[in-house]
């Protein structure tokens, strides 16, 4: 599991990418609940 | 044809009364070109390499600055509506406005540009290419610019909005205009660049006036 999170040392970049993408999607959906 | 020259002469007459506006744009162009060395340092080879891009960007900014005036005054005092219902076809009006805009901003910029090029120590043939690229490219800025100016009529923050709308569309002219001079500086024949500039002029002459007419009708409905 910790290997998965570490992503061979690139964890910051990989999870930084997917994390921000997820955040954008959440914000996009929240913007609908006016 | 008579309508075109009538409108063109009207635009030029009005501009002559407000010479300040026209000169402002020119002075802005010169100031911007002078700011870059102050920002990046006086190293001659660096400046020489930057020069085509800097002068061209100055031309883009000057165009964007001068465009909101294209239709705004006539829109505000109702002249634009009058011109729309007159016997003249709308494209003629728009082309006359574009021609006037180019004569009053694009052409002066192209003429002054070699002087700025000298400040950047550009060699003679590059100076010539710079002026040629601007002569061919600034009409494109006016063609597309008319569409931009028409779209923002009556909108808030028209100045900044015009810039936001037009600058992405100006990227191809910038790339090939500055690119032509850059090519010459590194020893490549710039004729391909000039061909593309010509093509861009042709394409923008279709898109720009069409969009401007459509946008004017939308604004005055």
């Amino acid at each position, binding site marked *: 599991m910790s290997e998965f999170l570490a992503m061979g040392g*690139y964890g910051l970049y990989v999870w930084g990418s997917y994390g921000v993408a997820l955040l954008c999607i959440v914000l996009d959906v929240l913007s609908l609940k006016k | 044809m008579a309508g075109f020259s009538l409108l063109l002469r009207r635009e030029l007459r009005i501009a002559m009364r407000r010479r300040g506006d026209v000169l402002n744009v020119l002075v802005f162009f010169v100031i911007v070109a002078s700011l870059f060395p102050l920002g990046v340092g006086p190293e001659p080879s660096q400046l020489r390499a930057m020069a085509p891009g800097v002068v061209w960007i100055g031309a883009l900014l000057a165009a964007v600055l001068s465009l909101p005036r294209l239709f705004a005054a006539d829109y505000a005092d109702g002249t634009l509506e009058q011109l729309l219902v007159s016997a003249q076809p709308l494209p003629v009006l728009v082309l006359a406005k574009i021609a006037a805009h180019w004569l009053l901003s694009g052409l002066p910029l192209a003429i002054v540009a070699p002087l700025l090029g000298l400040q950047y120590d550009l060699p003679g043939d590059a100076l010539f290419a710079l002026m040629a690229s601007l002569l061919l490219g600034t009409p494109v800025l006016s063609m597309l610019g008319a569409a931009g100016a028409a779209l923002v009529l009556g909108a808030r923050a028209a100045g900044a909005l015009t810039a936001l709308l037009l600058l992405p569309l100006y990227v191809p002219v910038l*790339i090939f205009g500055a690119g032509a001079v*850059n090519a010459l500086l590194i020893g490549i024949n710039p004729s391909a660049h000039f061909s593309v500039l010509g093509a861009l002029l042709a394409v923008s002459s279709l898109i720009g006036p069409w*969009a401007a007419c459509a946008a004017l009708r*939308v604004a005055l409905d």
Partner: protein
Amino acid sequence: MLYKLASPQAFFPVAGTLIPWFGALAAALALAGLYVAFIVAPTDATQGEAYRIIFIHVPAAWMSMFLYLIMAGWAGLGLALNTRLSGMMASAIAPTGAMFTFIALWTGALWGKPTWGTWWVWDARLTSELILLFLYLGFIALKASIDDPLRADRAGAILALVGAVNVPIIYFSVQWWNTLHQGASVSLTRAPAMAMTMLTGMLLMALAAWMYSIAVSLARVRNIIQERERHAQWIQA
């Protein structure tokens, strides 16, 4: 029959029933895509685990371009046929399109840093994505700055069409510019040879993104309809 759907009033409930289906499809496809991206796809020889970013970067870039064309299409339709709903659809799509453009740029930067050493490369495709973002923002800004919604729709439509025609010209220009200035630097597009697994993963994620975009756009157009038609009887009922 489809013509009946052209009225906001008729379209409103139809959109409402469609949204959960597209949402569910999006979630399912995303799960499948992420499974391929993280479990099935092997580690890359040169880039290690960092290359897994491709499964979000490339689909986002595809969607950003695809959505712009769809948006321009709706806008053009509204301009040609004078249908109110078409303009509303264009407005509904724009924020999601801009979002995907941003995701493509952000993930591109995070992919570039560990692989090529810099947060940004003036790679032809990334640079074109940046300009595409400006085109989206310009469209959104223009619509926001015009008070009359019908006028805003039609002005926006003209802008979107001009933009759509210019996108290939801009892309070609940036390609040209990039090849001339290419030094020893590498391009993010020179991805490892496209193995079937990778292609599958990217396609699944792209389809997921597409279903998501439809769901969100339908929801957003419902909001727009409610806002614009708020004086109509059928809304107040």
